[in-house]
């Protein structure tokens, strides 16, 4: 038996009304292989004692990741802590842009730049700004595209932030619950392939409405 605390069950980030009601990938944990289960379950409780980011960096990183992933309510996937684990181990993607320093240095510098911007525009550290003020700082970086943000190409900074943030968030069982993805599938596999075919453990989409976004409107 694998023990999973109740506060990890049937969770979605921010406890939003689920689009896949009752779906919990952790219901299937007994059917995962032990190696995979170990790796996935460790994400539920990364150490809150960060080892790469300084305290100031941690506050900025958490606020930045909450913005990028719209995590405005608890419970939150511990995105910054999961990024910290990676950076502390030097687990990069195996490349960095020539115009950007190696990932760890790039994270530290860009977090400091965010604080610089926040202080200049709103007179306070990034983590202390309101959500909409933070959003406007973040939007500034994305909107610069291929132009420079401080002394770095903005689109490459954007790539760095979003790669790390999405990798952490969408590796978490709560995020899988939100999107209806059943996670690990070994040695169980799938039997019912094809349009609108589901396994007994998959849950039908209760909303089925095409995404609406500001960009699409």
């Amino acid at each position, binding site marked *: 038996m694998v023990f999973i605390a109740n506060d990890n069950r049937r969770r979605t980030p921010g406890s939003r009304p689920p689009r896949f009601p009752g779906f919990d990938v952790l219901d299937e944990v007994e059917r995962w292989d032990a190696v995979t289960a170990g790796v996935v379950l460790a994400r539920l409780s990364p150490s809150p004692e960060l080892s790469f980011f300084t305290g100031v960096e941690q506050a900025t990183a958490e606020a930045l990741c909450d913005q990028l*992933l719209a995590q405005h309510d608890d419970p939150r996937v511990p995105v910054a802590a999961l990024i910290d684990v990676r950076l502390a181990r030097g687990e*990069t993607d195996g490349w*960095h842009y020539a115009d950007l320093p190696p990932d760890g240095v790039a994270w530290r510098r860009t977090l400091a730049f965010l604080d610089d911007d926040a202080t200049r525009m709103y007179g306070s550290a990034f983590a202390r700004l309101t959500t909409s003020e933070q959003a406007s700082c973040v939007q500034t970086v994305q909107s610069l595209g291929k132009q420079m943000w401080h002394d770095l190409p903005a689109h490459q900074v954007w790539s760095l932030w979003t790669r790390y943030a999405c990798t952490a968030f969408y*590796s978490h069982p709560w995020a899988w619950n939100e999107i209806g993805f059943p996670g690990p599938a*070994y040695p169980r596999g799938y039997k019912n392939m*094809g349009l609108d075919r589901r396994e007994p453990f998959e849950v039908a989409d209760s909303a089925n409405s095409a995404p609406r976004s500001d960009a699409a409107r």
Partner: protein
Amino acid sequence: MNISANLSSYSKVRTRNNSAWLLPKGPGFPHALREGMAHFDDDDEVDIVIVGCGAGGGTLAQRLARAGWRVVALDAGPFWDPETDWVSDERGSHSLYWTDPRVISGADPVPLGSNNSGRGVGGSMVHYAGYTPRFHPSDFATLTNDGVGADWPISYADLRPYYAQLEQELPVAGQHWPWGDPHDYPFQAQPVSGNGDVFITGAQRLGIATRVGPVAIANGRFGNRPHCIYRGFCLQGCKVNAKASPLITHVPDALAYGAEIRAHCHVSSVLVDDRTGHATGVTYFKDGVEHRQRARVVAVAGYSIETPRLLLLSASKRFKDGLCNDEGQVGHYLMVQGAPQTAGRFESEVRMYKGPPPEVSSEAFYETDPAASYKRGYAIQTVSPLPITYAEHVIAQGHWGENLREYMRDYVHWSSLGALCELLPRYENSISLADEVDKHGLPVANFSYSMGDNDKQLMAAAQSTMEHILKAAGATETMTIQRFAHLVGGCRMATSARDGVVDAQQRTFAVPNLYLTDGSVLPTQGSANPALTIMALAARVADQLIAGQRKGPHPKAVRHV
């Protein structure tokens, strides 16, 4: 193909390569074979030392060990056990990729790592999708036929028998193949998932031909390898042992015939005797200590980034600008395929994470279209990004925050196609040594890449075709991410030293007993996934080495089988 035909072809395969029957019945790797592996001393002059144990190096090691050569293959990464080392998880598969530092530059920098770079025994084929198409005959003469790219010093006919051999050894499943040199596959095509259904339906409505396959996953058992369980994590390393990689298709047989495969050995230079001009072995780091392995032949199979990097790192008094680089060819003409992926939104639940991502292909646009303003073409295949990769698609549309979450919540309704566009070789697309160093203090590679006009036209055409197919199948919205896939070239094969690094036998022009046996030798790339071609080239080199060997099988050669 019926069962009796399969059985008779099995016995033929086994006389050439018994790997699938050496694996355990069930998951994992045959540990007894590994524990009983030969061990050669560093000072022992082995018949060949092979740098890298992926598609090229693994195939070469197996062929030569079977012929009685005393083989040592060195790999920078681990000797994997699929059952205990790999996970059925996207994020957790990070260790499969080459994640030592590398720098990317140019007008169109190409991300590496998970995108195209493996590490460990089995190489990038551990995490390739599993598509194993052949190149077309036209790929070997694009300069003559189309006035672009380069002509190979060999033709399709030279590779054809090796394609057929390897399709049996992997083995490959697929429908009859009508494109290029038409051929059949040893296994019937796999059933397809919702994602494959969408592609076939959309293409049919537009009159575009598709075929299921060619995928290196047996449709059935093969030796002791189990049937695929359609779990969808092909790009994370196949824990099932259903999808082919050299780790399970060639390494077991190599070990049984006495090859030594030394993992965690990072080769730092090829040694060349300045007096004789011959390679004498390699130096390598293991656990931080530098060793040297002597050998009478050296083969480098580190793929398109590490092979040129190693030659550049092997500069000597004789080769001041890097080994084999007198003509300034090392590291150049490095290619990637333009690989835009287009996703479409469907009312139905597609759940594209189910089933192998590689399912259905079309090579209807592979050849030059006389009516088009660009030369050469593209292939279209199913791809099925898992959530983390799919998030990159959404981010590429400019979404973040609430919009990102909104699109991701809709994941089960999206189907995805990928194109492979033949981007043309350009001298300036190249590897050089960066100022940054790796953990051994060796300068890392800087890969500079920029597209030309033909390249951009091809990618736009491929995107438009994918959008049409998805819409014809009923997609209400599409989104495309611009990306690149696969690496080839960097030390290309040519008729003269002025134009390349190796000759038609993949022997370097500069050093007579130094061979390059990986994707770096490809002069062009077609629109085909390169794995099968890299293996076929290595098998061909092996045959030539065996035919021309200066001495017979070494008396010390070990035979277990």
